[in-house]
């Protein structure tokens, strides 16, 4: 099985081989001997690569792998060959720029709307302010686009995962109909 993962700015092709020398991870064709052991029932792992010891915690968060090394946390998504082919056939997640849903990553209260429906926004522009715990945070646009719909009002309590804003594609030539 082949896997695809985007890391350090590039997409890598990853494969696994098990031989009598042990396990090898191939990154873009280059083999690296690795030894991974899980600490029983603890969410912790020990990884040895060329003698170097990496201790880390690993978990899933909404389908992403979250890897906590001692000095950094890396969040990424792995796609296997099958899924990749399926997505390419359906025009799924990869490459698509359809409507994006901005969701609340935690429960809180909406404090202030910073945009209105129909506004064109640039990447990083604040959409609304939400308070969680004693802190107020800005929810920002993850890419350029147009605010298609705002689903909440100031003062509304929102759960984790609640839909806040639906974004449409940026002003652009009308999409060609298939």
């Amino acid at each position, binding site marked *: 099985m082949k*896997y695809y*993962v985007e*890391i*350090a*700015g590039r997409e*890598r092709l*990853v494969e*696994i081989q098990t031989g009598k020398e042990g396990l090898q*991870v191939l*990154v873009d064709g280059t083999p*690296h001997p*690795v030894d*991974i052991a*899980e*600490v029983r*029932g*603890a*969410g*912790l*792992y020990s*990884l040895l*690569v060329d003698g*170097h010891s*990496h*201790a*880390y*915690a*690993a*978990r*899933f968060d909404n*389908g992403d*792998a*979250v*890897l*906590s*090394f*001692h*000095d*950094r*946390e*890396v969040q*990424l998504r*792995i796609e*296997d060959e099958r*899924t990749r082919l399926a997505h390419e056939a359906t025009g799924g997640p990869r490459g698509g720029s359809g409507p994006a849903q901005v969701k609340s*990553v*935690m*429960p809180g209260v909406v404090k202030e709307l910073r945009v209105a429906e129909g506004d064109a926004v640039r990447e990083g522009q604040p959409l609304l302010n939400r308070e*969680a*715990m*004693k*802190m107020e*945070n*800005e929810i920002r646009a993850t890419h350029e686009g147009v605010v298609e719909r705002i689903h909440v009002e100031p003062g509304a309590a929102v759960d984790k995962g609640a839909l806040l804003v639906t974004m449409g594609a940026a002003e652009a030539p009308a999409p060609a109909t298939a």
Partner: protein
Amino acid sequence: MTVAPRPIRKILVANRGEIALRVIRAAHDMGIRTVAVYSDADRTALHVRGAYEAYRLGPPEPAASYLSIEKILDACKASGADAVHPGYGFLAENAAFVEAVEAAGLVFIGPPAAAMHAMGDKISARATVSAGGVPVVPGATLEDASNPALVVETAKGVGFPLLVKAAFGGGGKGMRLVNGPGEVVEAVQRASSEAVTAFGDGTVYLERFIEKPRHIEIQILADEHGNAVAVGERECSVQRRHQKVVEESPSPIVDADLRARMEEAAVQAARACGYTSAGTVEFLVGADREFHFLEMNTRIQVEHPITELCYGVDLVREQIRIAEGLPISFGETHPPLRGHAIEARICAEDADRGFLPSTGTLGAVQLPGGPGVRCDGHVFAGQEITLYYDNLLLKVIVYAEDRPSAIHRLKRALYETRLPGLTTNIPFVLRVLDDERFLSGDYDTSLAEDLPAPPLDENDVVPVVAAALALHRRVPKAVVPAARPTVALSPWVQADRGWMSR
């Protein structure tokens, strides 16, 4: 002074988290029994399991549990506790709580209600300590906030830039920065109406804005025998959004002379309000190394352990002794300053997403140990970290013979710490510890404002990819981790469910 001794035999700790454990530890170290109180979210918390007795307060919401004076006094009665320690936060600086505890015939382990009153209102605190000769940040009270001419005139007297602050505020709320006379009237209006909403009182005052200051605080202890002593300073300038992250003692910029002057001012501030127990006097220190009184915290601080390590004292034990009517164990002469201590506050938050609090269930917690490492935390495997309470998980505190060794040791200790299941600020703290400004000691409150994660190095690609792949292949894609109930089921309930399903 003759003080009737009030021996304490059983302390109820009106708090949760690491500070509840800290107080329980001090009490047990002294052979005193302890009583914990808990909300439903904390049924299996370490303070409940660590105390000799435990009483339920109510549902998780603080107002219905840790902030309920009535329920806490009920637990005092049920347990027969003879004293209450408030920790920090919750009811720790609530003078009405002190009065209620004392009215119930119990000892409050903290300052007198009157001192708390005097220092709780920032305008009154400035006036009190000024009268005692302590330098305050230049500023002025607004006699009539609705008179624009008077506001502008008062502001000019203070000088620009200045801050508009709420008298009863805290945590940066209702605070406004004003750069010149043209902005001040509107700023006062807005700050005042925000203060009404947030704190129920619209009184505001003006204070000179000290640019890129250092936050340095002095620990004081005072007893009923007339002893009042300062126990050195803590450097608290590493802050993100007005929250301290890394504290150290001694401060890299405080020499013996400055320390002596700040300690004297702090003792004067304590004497000016008739203080007893442990307290902290916070100062702002400008680039000119002049210090100005900022506020007094009438409680034990989160960062008190660094003082304990550098001076060989136990501040919570001293609080208990003072509450018993005993003198400070070392009178007015504390052991000499020795070595260097640093504390890192490990919080459940994502520094790379605006310090958003993170939630989840902890896996197998691994705490650091070995020489020079002290851990004050409340984390345990299986613990649910929720949004109900403060997101401080653990304080990793190190002690070494000098500052460079302490920094090395703290990095080592954080390297050992594992809190699987949550995103924590450990990577962020390590970035602080590696920052040139921090290493040189020449830093101010702007240090932690801009410390982005360095990009992933090409050398890290193989371990990261291997780790991700191992996780991916272990957990089939279809298996989404099931949502877990917030409160652990009693084994009884589980067993009974078992019967039913047969």
